[in-house]
């Protein structure tokens, strides 16, 4: 008997729910301060820019730049064993200087990815109704 290998799935909480709910609707949704307009990722219970607790969320453009990346060639979880090599990246979003997220860059040969590449969000089904926002090169 083999055990089905599941991906690492989120235990969604109050702070992360907008991100996952947005993704399931094909939107990249980031925590957004209702008081000062600051975007914050990962989400926290307080805005680090103005200390407001009045936090909401907003869809962002989904466009960004590869800040850095590595090509993962070793799986640290069984789910990734048949997905090697894959590109793990930090993408800086256009919507606010320094607003970055950990993600994957897909749809490109990993060896062709470069720091500074322009990318846009796309959505990959994960499992059990979860959708993962990832990035692909912007069509030239």
């Amino acid at each position, binding site marked *: 008997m083999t055990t089905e290998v599941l991906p690492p799935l989120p235990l969604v*909480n109050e702070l992360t729910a907008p991100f996952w709910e947005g993704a399931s609707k094909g939107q990249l949704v980031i925590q957004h301060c209702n008081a000062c307009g600051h975007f914050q*990722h*990962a989400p926290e219970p307080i805005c*680090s820019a103005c200390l407001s607790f009045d936090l909401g969320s907003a869809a962002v453009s989904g466009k960004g730049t590869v800040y850095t990346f590595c090509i993962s060639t070793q799986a*640290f*979880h069984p*789910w990734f064993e048949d997905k090697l090599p894959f590109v793990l990246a930090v993408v800086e979003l256009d919507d606010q200087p320094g607003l970055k997220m*950990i993600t994957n860059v897909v749809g490109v040969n990993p060896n062709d990815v470069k720091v*500074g590449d322009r990318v846009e969000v796309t959505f990959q089904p994960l499992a059990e109704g979860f959708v993962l926002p990832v990035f692909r090169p912007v069509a030239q």
Partner: protein
Amino acid sequence: MAKKNRVAIVGVGYSDVSRGTGYTLDKLTAQASVAAMNDAGIKPTDIDGVVVHSFPHQFVSSTHTAAMLGIPDLAFYSGNVDGAAYSVAAMHAIAAIASGSAETVLTIRTVHKNGAAGGGGPVGQYIPGNQQLSQPYGSFAGSHWAGMYMQRHMAMYGSTEEDFGAFAIAQRKFAVANPTESFFHEELTMEDYLNSRYIAKPLHLFDCDYPVDSSSALIFTTEERARDMKQKPVFFDSWANGTTKEADFSLVGDMTHSSPWMASKRMWSRTSLKPSDVDTAGLYDGFSFIAMQWFEALGFCGEGESGAFVRSGATSATGSLPTNTDGGACNVGRRHGANFFIEVTRQLRGTAGDRALPKKPEVGVVSNAVGGFAACALLTAE
């Protein structure tokens, strides 16, 4: 006005160290503590402070450690699970002694082989907290952010895998000269380095520290007490922590100027010593790029020039800054920073045996960590 005591290192010690000792964290901790007390020539009743740094899932209690060792009463204790590994224990102990809160403090870092940060949670379990925003992308291990820090440096400064390889090769030379502590006994060639497998390209296997079971202990005390002890004391001249605005290592604002830059700037602002006064260095090498970032942050070379600095031979035994003269954690095994404090102490007080540097050092620098948090300190022989 409060008196600020000068702080000295008077004892150093290791537990048995191997890929699998079969020993509990407590036994390793006790072994290292006894070794450090023997080195200092002191008894448990001479100690009035204990500070331990350990991982949350491998917690070692400072008060339990004291009880285990028969230390009757603690004026200061702290068990930390947050921040820059061994250096957190060191910084707490220095602050305690300098402020007069305690006189003689045992500092400890204990780690089991499989205890590195990352590695992923149990399969099939839902991921709590903000790790749910990284693990579904396959981001689990230190090697992942390490590969990304290296890539950023390469993109910003044109550094190459060979630059990081030059560091691995240089410190392996020291390891070969330290056969009793090193797990590796043959020199590394650039071919060996480049042919070693990628973990997270550009990060190679030989960029990673070597996971072992280990405990490391150092004893700190006041100058006054240190003068009466068995070993020639080594003194802290200046010390500092530094952190970044972002706690997540993968999301720090500037990967090529992370916490080592903040800690270094603060440390230099508190001393009359300059980089050119430093004779030897022990720079954290959890991944080889970390030591490279410290060369730049501490001002031993220009920004982005750590590769050229290492290639010039500067970090070798006869260079201007012999670095990681025990072989570093990539070779002697993961001690999470403590080995650098221990080895620089041995070089400065003249107990490094066959590894004594050709030019006896008077000033050394030690460091720990990178990314979100880091610390460094200047040590002097007098």
